[in-house]
């Protein structure tokens, strides 16, 4: 059975074959992290819920066909007392009952597979000290007679890779600031934002000051079947004036490079012996086949663009452009992957920013925004 799951996911990705009555469903689950409670509505078809709050009840109306299967995952939650479905003509209504009327909410959705999130934040002194729960791990209570769920929850993993670590400290500023420390802080902040705002599980390749091999970093992403891989670094240059953010993804277009090399030599009127350049190209092609990243280059490029755009806004930098190069850690990752050089530790003004916890928050926010923009565009 498990073997068919990837195939089913693929079918869903390719365009909603689950519109048929007996398979059409809406499923609600509830989860909680430190500061907010989250309701996730998964569906077999695109939905545009309308929300209405009155007192301690939030009503969610979703247009749906008759016969849609309404499902609910079991949950325990300190603030959300109950959720319940009811069906009216052409609409399914989810009622969320909370422990108090003082709360605010916002919503967010992902198109593929359809997931709709309602983040509920209690106001005033309602607090909870429950640990964060990943909603995908909750128990499910299928309704009687319903076939067992064959569609995975869609809670996927984003792997954040804080560069360097342990004896391998990475870049070091004149003042002694270490890349490995800054990137760990930013990565932790980013993880927190993603997990509170977004229905993704986030895994760090290291959560402390230890050395981790580049293979192990890529393996973390591959073992968890990660959705995205973000390697976080801070830069350093031989140039005193180098500053600002850069986002990289893997380069491997050797034939193109070779073409550019030829063009360059032609333009500069330098003689070039071409007798065996095609052989060489083939050889490089072959070497590149063992790289896992090749299938994801286009997505990686888009992800890099989105993140770089947000970082440029934050740093008010001219666009240095997204760049490509042969990064060892990216080559082994089998999902869209980018490496972010947040700013230059070799530039004192950048260093000052990188050391500020407040600025680190803003960096994490910017990367998060880029991520959201990428996911929104994901289908196109």
């Amino acid at each position, binding site marked *: 059975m498990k073997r068919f799951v990837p195939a089913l996911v693929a079918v869903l990705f390719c365009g909603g074959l689950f519109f048929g009555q007996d398979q059409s469903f809406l499923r609600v689950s509830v989860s909680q992290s430190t500061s907010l409670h989250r309701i996730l509505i998964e569906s077999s078809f695109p939905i545009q819920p309308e929300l209405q709050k009155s007192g301690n009840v939030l009503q969610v109306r979703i247009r749906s066909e008759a016969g849609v299967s309404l499902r609910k995952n079991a949950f325990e939650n300190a603030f959300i007392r109950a959720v319940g479905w009811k069906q009216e003509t052409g609409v399914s209504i989810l009622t969320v009952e909370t422990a108090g009327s003082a709360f605010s909410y916002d919503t967010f959705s992902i198109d593929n597979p359809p997931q709709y999130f309602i983040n509920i934040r209690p106001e005033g002194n309602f607090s909870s000290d429950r640990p964060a729960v990943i909603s995908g791990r909750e128990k499910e209570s299928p309704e009687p007679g319903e076939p067992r769920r064959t569609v995975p929850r869609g809670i996927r993993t984003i792997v954040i890779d804080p560069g360097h670590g342990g004896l391998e400290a990475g870049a070091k500023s004149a003042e002694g600031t270490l890349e490995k420390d800054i990137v760990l802080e930013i990565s932790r902040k980013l993880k927190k934002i993603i997990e509170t705002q977004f229905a993704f599980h986030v895994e760090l390749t290291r959560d402390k000051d230890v050395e981790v091999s580049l293979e192990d970093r890529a393996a973390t992403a591959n073992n968890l079947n990660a959705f995205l891989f973000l390697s976080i670094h801070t830069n350093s240059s031989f140039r005193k004036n180098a500053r600002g953010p850069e986002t990289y993804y893997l380069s491997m277009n050797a034939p193109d490079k070779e073409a550019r090399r030829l063009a360059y030599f032609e333009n500069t009127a*330098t003689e070039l012996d071409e007798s065996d350049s095609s052989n060489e190209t083939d050889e490089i092609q072959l070497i590149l086949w063992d790289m896992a990243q090749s299938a994801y280059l286009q997505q990686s490029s888009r992800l890099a663009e989105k993140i770089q755009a947000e970082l440029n806004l934050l740093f008010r930098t001219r666009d240095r452009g997204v760049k490509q190069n042969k990064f060892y850690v990216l080559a082994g990752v089998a999902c869209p992957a980018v490496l972010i050089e947040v700013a230059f530790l070799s530039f004192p003004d950048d260093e000052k920013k990188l050391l500020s916890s407040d600025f680190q928050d803003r960096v994490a926010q910017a990367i998060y925004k880029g991520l959201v923009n990428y996911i929104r565009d994901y289908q196109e």
Partner: protein
Amino acid sequence: MEKKRRIILAVLAVLLIVLAVVFFQQGGRDSTSLSSGVFKDPGVPDPETEARETVTFYFLTEDGPNLSPETREIPLFASVSLKARRIVNELLAGSEKGLICPFPEKTQLREFYLSEDGTAFVDFLGEVRNHHPFGSSADIATIYSLVNTLTFNIKEIKQVVILVDGRENQTLGGHLDLTKPFVFRADVISR
């Protein structure tokens, strides 16, 4: 056809060189730079003669992230390997025009080897790593300064492998993959 023309050109060029050498041994020796691509004749004195050729080095500037060319004359070498060593050492010695050399100050060439398939193995002493700035930009500058300088000036060199202390390394500063050869990249050069 192409080949014949090349041979004729080469013969003419060698004649010119010989003439030039004769002339300049007597008179002033200035700006005759000889095209690097033409010369192949092992008959010319080795390693250093009066004849010189123009070589393009790729350094950094404060103006932008890309590499900038700086030309310089070096003695004419008949041996590709000797020429390559000379070029690497000149590169490590730094710019004569105030450009930035993207190598740690005490970086030294340990060994150089050119394989038959055109792969140059450039082996540095450990200093290249020990005092490197370790940022991606610094990694990229070091690697492409070397790779572009060698592949641009020596057509026999198709690709470059960088070794440190005689050993293959995964990366220089934790970023770019050093386990595979690098080829010339035009897009890291400023226009």
